[in-house]
């Protein structure tokens, strides 16, 4: 573990070009997120918050600017190197859960361990432990279709945590859940943050964002507000 910030963005610009059209979505974002923070990135649709989330998550590359993730300059890395970063530094939780439908909960959680090259026995032990931490020990053998929405999202969180990432990224994690389940799930994130996890959550929902300890507001590709709650 380094003392460097988990996320350090300097002058990040993202331009989407479709044929002759060029659309600049982010206009020079500067953002630093320290270890142990719980940050909500907010903004209306079209504000660039999803683009920012994809860049932070190394799912996409900035057009210009510098990005240090856990002290590593990732702005110039190629696809394979980015895959390696995603594997070891990042955990994703998506709005639509994004679980493999035909694999059971345990296999879904163990997926990143497989790509990390861990032996089958160790994979199973580690995935089982993380599932248990999230209260799903008895659901290990269930397929996603046999789980409730809240359970599915907790499986997704377990998968995001299984490689012990530097940063947990959540994109509208409660978007597909009812309010009671959302509340439970946000509690999970809070607990994770309480034990030291760095969490970045993208949402358009004020009540969801209110769980975070810092809120970064985006509008039209600029950060318009950045304040502790």
């Amino acid at each position, binding site marked *: 573990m380094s003392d460097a910030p988990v996320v350090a963005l300097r002058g990040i610009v993202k331009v989407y070009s479709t044929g002759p059209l060029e659309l600049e979505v982010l206009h020079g974002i500067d953002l630093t997120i320290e270890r142990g923070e719980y940050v909500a990135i907010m903004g209306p649709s079209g504000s660039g918050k999803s683009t920012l989330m*994809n860049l932070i*998550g190394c*799912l*996409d590359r900035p057009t210009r600017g510098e990005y240090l993730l856990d002290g590593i300059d990732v702005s110039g890395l190629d*696809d*394979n190197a980015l*895959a*390696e970063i*995603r*594997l*070891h530094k990042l955990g*994703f939780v*998506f709005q639509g859960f*994004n*679980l*493999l439908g*035909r694999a059971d909960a345990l296999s879904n959680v163990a*997926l*990143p361990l*497989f*790509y*990390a*090259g861990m*032996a*089958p026995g160790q994979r199973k032990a580690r995935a089982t432990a993380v599932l248990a931490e999230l209260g799903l020990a008895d659901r290990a053998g269930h397929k996603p279709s046999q789980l409730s929405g809240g359970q599915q999202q907790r499986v997704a969180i377990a*998968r995001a945590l299984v*490689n012990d990432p530097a940063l947990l990224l959540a994109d509208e994690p409660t978007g597909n859940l009812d309010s009671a389940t959302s509340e439970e799930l946000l509690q999970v994130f809070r607990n994770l943050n309480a034990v030291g996890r760095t969490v970045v959550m993208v949402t358009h929902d004020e009540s969801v964002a209110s769980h975070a300890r810092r809120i970064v507001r985006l509008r039209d590709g600029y950060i318009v507000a950045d304040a502790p709650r």
Partner: protein
Amino acid sequence: MHRILAYLDEAVTSLWRNRVRSLLTMLGMIIGSASIITVFGISRATTSGIASTFGSFGTFPVVVQADPAQDYPSIAQIHYDDVRTVARALQGITPWVIPEWNRTYLTTFGNKHDYPSVIASSGFHDDGIAMQQGRKLTQEDVNSAAHVCVITADLGAEYFGTGNALGNYLRINGGRYRVVGVYSNIRGSFLNSLVGSSTVAIPYTTFHRDVDPSPPDYILIYAPSGTEETAGKLAIAALQRIHGPGAKYVTQNTADLLKSFENVLNIVGVGLAAIGGVALVVAGIGIMNIMLVSVTERTREIGIRKAGGASRNDIALQFLMESGVLALVGGGIGMAIGVLVTVGGASLLSQQLGEMIIPYAFIVSLAVGFSIVVGVLFGTYPALRAARLAPIAALRA
């Protein structure tokens, strides 16, 4: 290693989930592989069968005859006494120079009669054919122009049934000939018909003196392997010294005939294999097509895997494994069918063409090799396409 096994497991599971589709895709591989194996297997086996059967005859003669396409064939007419001159010219090469006639005669035993072909023979060379009863003609028979004959198995059965043929007398064109031997049946009935399944062999001296004094149709030269061409040329030179340089002769070398027969078989085999190859290419395109469909269907899965840390190689390997399994399993089933057809076909053909050797190692490696090549070749493009998908685009699908 456990990684490869995991990918394999993943590939098999995924193919099994779409089993009807997988089976239909494999059908192309099955047909392609089965046809290639059958074609190569049977053509190789046939060649081996023909070669081994011809081999059992021992040496093949060079046939020398007057060229029928000359203006005055009569001046080139081979006379019985020419044979001795030719034999003298060939002294250093082979002693086995004999005249031959191509005739059939009424041949009777009791009230049974037939018109077998009667050939002049000598005891000089070993024809390599096994005897069912008795012996072959000997030099002694030839020297004394003995009234003895050796008959083929078919003829033996026709005249004497299952009983003993030896010591009985056949009446050939009026003369009486004691049966001293019965040939075994040649394994390939096709070659039986080539040689003649109802044939009576008598010493050529006897043939000339007592059956037909007319000039022989050919001269047969049994020359050691490699000297056939020289022997033929020397024989023609000797004949031209007798009949004048205007007399034209042609030689025919049975070994060459066998070789050209094998060549024809090989050409046919290559042609058929090319068609099988086309079938395999079509099968490969089918695999590529279904893999592209699979990549499109599973775009989201690819996105999830990439978000989970899968590299391009991981994704490419996963899809390559699937196309590889499709190709190998299809090729394997095709191989099994092909081997069965080859074994069946060879056992049918061997009745006609003699004992065959099926080149199992050859056809198995052919099938496996082709399947791997097809799987990898046609699986690469879909796999690379999957691997190159941008993770966000894939997740949005």
